[in-house]
């Protein structure tokens, strides 16, 4: 039995999409990178626009179980200390501030997050363009995260 067959289908699907030209392009251009994978947990670092006193990238601890049928869910993560970011360490701004809010569950407050979608089923119609569906992929997800912390609206931490 080959090693590949021991890898569950959701993990295999993610690994295949991480090798797609569109995801690799983002890596080549420094927009995002995969820090590690300990299935189903994947640490994804997304580069951020320069802001005074803010980091040049944010790491998300993503859970890709069920990928791509199920949306991922993620927590903004402190890589060195292996813990969620504190409120003071999270990105701020009009849109991004809502997505990275800390006064909620340990998930992103967005229709591309599994936990948020479970709590806001109206978002699937209200924000259809931003709602995770099984035809989305990790590149689409990374673009959503990257645009949030590179928006003109992003104010730093």
């Amino acid at each position, binding site marked *: 039995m080959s090693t590949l067959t021991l890898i569950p289908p959701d993990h295999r699907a993610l690994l295949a999409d991480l090798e797609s*030209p569109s995801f690799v392009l983002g890596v080549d251009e420094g927009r995002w990178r995969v820090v590690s994978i300990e299935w189903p947990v994947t640490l994804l670092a997304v580069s951020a626009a320069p802001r005074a006193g803010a980091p040049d990238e944010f790491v998300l601890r993503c859970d890709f179980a069920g990928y791509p049928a199920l949306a991922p869910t993620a927590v903004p993560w402190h890589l060195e200390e292996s813990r969620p970011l504190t409120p003071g360490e999270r990105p701020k701004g009009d849109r991004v501030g809502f997505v990275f809010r800390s006064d909620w569950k340990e998930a992103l407050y967005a229709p591309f997050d599994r936990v948020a979608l479970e709590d806001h089923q109206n978002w699937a119609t209200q924000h259809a363009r931003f709602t995770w569906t099984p035809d989305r992929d990790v590149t689409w997800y990374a673009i959503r995260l990257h645009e949030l912390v590179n928006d003109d609206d992003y104010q730093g931490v």
Partner: protein
Amino acid sequence: MKLYVHDDDAPLSTLEVEDTMTAQAVLDLRGGQGDLWIEDADDPLDGNVCVKDALGDGRHLHHSRRCRRLTVTVRYGGDTKERVFPPAATIQRVFQWATGNKGFDLSKAERAKHELGVCGSGVIAERREHVGSLAGPDCSLCLDLAPKERFEG
């Protein structure tokens, strides 16, 4: 040299080419039909041009088989604006035109609050995508300029 090739219909792909290859040689690798364009260029590459020299620091090509020119319509606030673009034009370039003084003339603050989506679909027009990759077989593309969505409630 690794190239990223945008297509009319297929997803983004990569292509390894020799540094000395001409545009015609690269085109031949992809079946020989259509034209190759440098990203955001107004005209296709001449077949005799060395692709590496033409690209400079860039690595993005568009391979068009259908349209050398596309009509892009942008809808905003009940009004529409129309302009012809080459297939290799990025959505970022369309956004700059649509929000600029030849488009809907949005202020800098308003520009930051808007984005483009494909009309009547759930598709976000990503800034890095090419017009030719989103257009229909009739060489036209309709985009909505809409306020960025906030996830509340």
